[in-house]
């Protein structure tokens, strides 16, 4: 069956609940406005089961009703992540089991960018979006160089730490500086290392899109909203699992 509707208590009833706030005072007109919105969203008839003023200028609504839309599951398009999402425990286990040493990650904000928000969200234990940062992972050795790190310094530290991966963040930039900085970084690493010995290069920041990896010369780009778990999972996939295929007997 590829055509479905929401299920309340009877197959095909299409029942949906929703809640929202309108920026108007609570009166009959406000309730009518809520019904109008629900109707436009495909809910007909819409039943306003709850309306409550929140201060003089806002009203909160809970609305129930059937939606007239049908969903065709055959037409659902999903962009699959090309690496499995692992829990911190699985990341640690995989690194310990297959790499047999800690995986070293060196991170920095390069160029003039002083905004460590991105790199800190991914690396600091405090983390982001309810997920702990990479420092939380026992098997990851995390070196966060902070802000305004020059590319030669980053390369030097990467060598000193024997880095497996480099994370570079660019948040606030002008005149495409984030692109130029990142290209400079990837070129420097390609020059300093033999291609098969080079650390995995990862760039992140709200102004990047995932399709920019080739242009930037990096192995992976993470955009806005990326969580530490996604980065850790990617690194395991790129460095641990793929390099040393899982032995099924283990």
């Amino acid at each position: 069956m590829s055509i479905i509707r929401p299920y309340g208590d009877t197959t095909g009833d299409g029942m949906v609940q929703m809640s929202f706030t309108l920026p108007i005072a609570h009166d009959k007109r406000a309730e009518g406005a809520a019904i109008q919105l629900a109707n436009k969203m495909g809910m007909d008839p819409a039943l306003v089961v709850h309306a409550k003023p929140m201060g003089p200028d806002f009203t909160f609504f809970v609305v129930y009703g059937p939606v007239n839309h049908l969903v065709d599951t055959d037409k659902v398009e999903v962009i699959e992540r090309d690496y499995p999402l692992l829990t911190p425990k699985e990341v640690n286990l995989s690194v310990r089991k297959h790499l047999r040493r800690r995986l070293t990650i060196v991170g920095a904000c390069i160029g003039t960018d002083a905004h460590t928000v991105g790199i800190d969200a991914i690396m600091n234990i405090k983390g982001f979006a309810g997920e702990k940062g990479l420092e939380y992972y026992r098997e990851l050795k995390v070196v966060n160089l902070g802000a305004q790190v020059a590319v030669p310094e980053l390369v030097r530290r990467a060598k000193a730490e024997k880095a497996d991966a480099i994370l570079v963040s660019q948040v606030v930039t002008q005149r495409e500086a984030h692109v130029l900085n990142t290209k400079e970084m990837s070129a420097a690493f390609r020059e300093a290392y033999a291609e098969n010995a080079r650390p995995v290069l990862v760039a992140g920041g709200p102004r990047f899109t995932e399709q920019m990896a080739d242009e930037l010369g990096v192995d992976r780009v993470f955009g806005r909203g990326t969580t530490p778990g996604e980065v850790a999972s990617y690194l395991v996939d790129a460095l641990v699992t793929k390099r040393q295929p899982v032995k099924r007997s283990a």
Partner: protein
Amino acid sequence: MTRAVKKLDLDPVTVRKARSLARKAGRPIVNLAKQHTTVSVERAVLRLAGLAGADSEGIPWVNRLADTVRADVGLEHGFALPVWDALLRGEAEDLNVLAQKAASGSVTFRLPEGRDAQRARTAARKAAAGGLKLIDGRRRERDRLIKKHGDPEQRPWIYLIVATGDIYEDIPQAQAAARAGADIIAVIRSTGQSLLDYVPEGATREGFAGTYATQENFRLMRAALDESSRELGRYIRLTNYASGLCMPEIATLAGLQRLDMMLNDSMYGILFRDINPIRTFVDQRFSRQIHARAGIIINTGEDNYLTTADAVDAAHTVTVSQLLNEYFAKEAGLEDWQLGLGHAFEITPEIPDSFRMELAHAMLARQLFPDAPLKWMPPTRHMTGDVFRGYLLDGFFNLVGAMTGQGILLVGMMTEAVVTPWISDRDLALQNVRYVLGAAGNLHEDFHPAPDGFIANRARQVLGESIDLLDRIVDEGLLNAIGDGTFGLMKRPQDAGRGLEGVARRSGEYYNPAIELLEEAQ
């Protein structure tokens, strides 16, 4: 608050032992703090003396001046002697001009000796005393306004957060939150501010997931909440963060602008921001001395440990940290009523008896610190995005808060970890709090856990584990324990971390007028 205490039959000898171990563990740290200074402590003295503003690049004049002084004479003597010596030598008519000249390289600083040093000391002391007088005036002003408008009718006080990044958006949101029932407004700082080695200047309109803490933002928000206090007939308190690399300066600015509470944990920066431990302890001591003077209530950050470590296994680390925070706070001059010691409702809900354990932990904190306004933090770790389940969890959190006489209740949002709170989220959350406090606010009168029951036993167990851990910390030293990952699972060695380059061991000539005045008054 005293009504809720003495419900657990804790052995007073054990409780005394816990405190004396905390004192033993903390004393070497205090000595260490007294032997060192930091760039931020010294800049705070300049701020206290009235130096404000920033250059055209937005770098504060205190930083410009401090950098030059440090380059000329070093950090180890403190900045007061070289700075006021330069003023007495007639290099500039005031600090502001001196800072500008320092930035342009037209002043050279020296460490004065003999009579010159004595004159510089006297002048610096007078300037710092002027700043403290302003802070004292702010404190009296707060007392007067509380008397006029009144405190909230109920305990716990209701604490709500605003965080738009734009101070001019924060203001109407904060006022709306106060109207809706908030007693305390916290303005979350922009992510990353804790790692800036300067305090941004002026009113700010762009931040990341929060608004920059600046003197002008403090002033604007305090003025707006004074307006709300008048409108609502209760004094609305304002909270910000004295943490990160500029903790002493931000504490000073908070005192000058009459903030009422400051997040100020003894170890948070070390553990969660990888700030050097010595830097943190030195900065923390100074900032707490200022808070003590300013009548500011501090909020500690034990709740954070439970976001990284397991809330059952690590329950005793919260107690240990509370005891340490209490010791450090009192040493710095803070009184019991100023200790908003933190703890949180973070036990995995699926664990059997999780609610009973939460109750046990909260009662233990309440009884160990009977006169402190404990700060009770809502669940975050187990808020999954299922907002309905989250709403129930917050209800149980509120119930523990009501049953155990917590002083400050941070309102939990069912959309935690989903979105920054919507207006409706806040309204629903406050309804939740009001219902629970109304329905069960006096339940503590009837609620006495059985002396040998699960709750009492669990509380005793956590206290026992705390003593074991304190014993270990006393043996190996607190800095080593932090280096080992005892708290929040983070390992932070004392010779690493951010801000280490801004620490120096005090020389024999070291002089800091602010510390001298604060300690005399103590």
